[in-house]
């Protein structure tokens, strides 16, 4: 048997992953990139957290921090990342390495570039198994790889194991990635845009597969995506990120059905609804996300926010804190009074895009 899993120390009731006030900064030639700026969240086993936000909002940087994959020479990571009862921030590389792939596994957006082009798929899965099961011989690891390929729904798994990634279709490749991620039965799976590179039908299959596997392995899942449809389909909780900060956080019901942040409104009303005129009822967010080297003062969203003026000059000066909506655990970071947020959502947003 391998060393006991970190999950053994977790109190049965506490969330498997708890991130507190995570900050990630990169030192670059152009200046300091504040890619993640004080983000907190938690995921329990058996539950799925969706992280959404536009490109460059710090979603991937957050997940790589959880895996301890940032280069310490150029990156400053602070805050707390509790994995199975252990804070991994500042842990020596050798310790974190033992968690990677065993307790926390990750799947990436583009499975073609994420798999090594020169090694057969089965061998890459077997390798992931053997690192954390040194007692397993080559043969046993290979059997395990084939078993996993079978489990994720790849036909003729024994033959497929001998093939190279380029011989797989996109969907099959992502299945193979999932097989590799789950080969050590991890407690936490981070899926960074796992379906973005796939066409819609395959997307649905992969999401179903993830849901099935979550049932079976009872793992915690972080699902990173641009796609609010995906989030509403599979997530239990949602974290909305903008410019490295959390702007809204709550259950799917709260964030997608009663959103309270103008940025979330923007995301919702820029996605065409399936019922109705695809163009007429959209309200896209104007402008582009800011550079994370020069984050706008105050609320980072203010240059693009239609309501920035409704708060006097506060939105321009003061970073809004993430506060609970009265009487709930639904968190929103906006200076608009709760009353007004409710009213504006009901009057101006709820009729537009998928928000309908």
């Amino acid at each position: 048997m391998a060393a006991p899993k970190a999950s053994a120390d977790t109190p049965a009731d506490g969330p498997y992953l708890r991130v507190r006030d995570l900050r990630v900064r990169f030192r670059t030639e152009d200046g300091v990139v504040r890619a993640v700026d004080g983000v907190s969240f938690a995921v329990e086993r058996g539950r799925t957290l969706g992280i959404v936000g536009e490109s460059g909002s710090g979603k991937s940087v957050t997940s790589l921090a959880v895996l301890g994959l940032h280069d310490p020479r150029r990156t400053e990571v602070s805050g707390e990342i509790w994995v199975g009862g252990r804070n991994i921030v500042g842990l020596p590389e050798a310790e974190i390495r033992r968690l990677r792939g065993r307790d926390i596994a990750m799947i990436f957006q583009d499975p073609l570039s994420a798999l090594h082009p020169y090694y057969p798929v089965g061998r890459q899965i077997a390798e992931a198994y053997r690192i954390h099961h040194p007692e397993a011989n080559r043969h046993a690891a290979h059997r395990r790889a084939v078993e996993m390929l079978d489990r994720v729904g790849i036909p003729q798994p024994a033959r497929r194991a001998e093939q190279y990634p380029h011989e797989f279709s996109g969907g099959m490749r992502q299945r193979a990635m999932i097989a590799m991620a789950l080969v050590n039965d991890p407690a936490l799976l981070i899926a960074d845009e796992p379906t973005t590179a796939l066409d819609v039908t395959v997307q649905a299959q992969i999401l179903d597969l993830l849901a099935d596997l979550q049932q079976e392995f009872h793992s915690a899942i972080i699902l990173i995506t641009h796609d609010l449809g995906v989030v509403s389909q599979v997530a239990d909780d949602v974290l909305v990120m903008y410019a490295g900060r959390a702007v809204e956080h709550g259950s799917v019901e709260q964030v997608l059905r009663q959103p309270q942040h103008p940025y979330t409104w923007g995301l919702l009303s820029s996605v065409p609804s399936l019922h109705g005129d695809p163009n007429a009822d959209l309200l896209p967010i104007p402008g582009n996300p800011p550079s994370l080297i020069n984050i706008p003062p105050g609320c980072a969203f203010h240059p693009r926010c239609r309501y920035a003026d409704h708060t006097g000059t506060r939105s321009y000066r003061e970073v809004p804190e993430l506060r609970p909506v009265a009487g709930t655990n639904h968190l929103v970071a906006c200076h608009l009074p709760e009353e007004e947020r409710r009213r504006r959502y009901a009057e101006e947003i709820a009729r537009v895009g998928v928000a309908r």
Partner: protein
Amino acid sequence: MLRFLVKKLLLALTTLIAVSVVTFGLFFAVPNNPAELMCGDSKNVCSPERIAMIERRMGLDKPIVTQYGDFMRGIFVGRTIGSGPTARECPAPCLGFSFRNDEPVTEIVARTLPVTLSIVFGAAVVWLVLGVSIGMASALRRGTALDKLAVGTSLVGASMPILLFGPLLLIVLVYETGLLTYPRYTPITEDPVAWASAMILPWFALGFLNSATYARLSRAQMLETLSEDFIRTARAKGLPKLAVYGRHALRAAITPIITIAGLDLGAYLGGTVITETVFGFTGLGKTALNAALNLDMPIVMATVLLAAVFVVTANVLVDVLYAVVDPRVRLG
């Protein structure tokens, strides 16, 4: 695989024929009569009769196309050169006789090719080992003092011509300090130690300078590979650094380096004129150069063809190797 090989070989053959035709053609485009040159400098000795005799002896009196055909046939089945009483037998692989001193070209090649082979293979070992390890180390320690030193040195090395570096080595290591003696080629079959010690200077000179190019190439390849998604995957699996670098990064980064090394090797085997000249070796390159200056047609043909064979063979080998290493390359 077979189809691929046959296609490659046919292409190689076509290339070789084209090279031989062009070389042959160019030689006759030069408005010099080799027979006149051979006959001597003083006009009075060279009567038209004597020139005609020489032409007959060398087979220069026949039409160019016939000469070309004879030459090519000689390589495979041997031939008789010249006609009349001065005709000579030349067994396969016949490359003709030197216009200058009548030495069979095959013998000249047999004498000078090992010199070039010795220089090039030894230097290649130096530049591959040195260049690739420096490049890899500096990629892995990117931004450190070691990396900067390596980048700086290899920039100097890559822009330094051997014409300068070779004599510099000679001055410092031979003439000034006497650490080494001026190299004198000894065949490896006669005395391996003497052979190796004569080779130290050219191996180092050529190997060191080329290692600069290879260090830069390896560093760039490695850095590019390290930023690939599959490296992130390897790390996300929990692989230790050594396995990430060795099994995953190196395997991908080294492939294009092997390719370029193969092509370089092919090109160098055709002769390393400057290295040979600087260190006083009579290798294939120097022989070819002298022959060209002397309009010694058979030697020029032989050395150019040989160089082309090396280049073409290296190309075929590299293609096959690439297909073996990278499963994405399809043969056919």
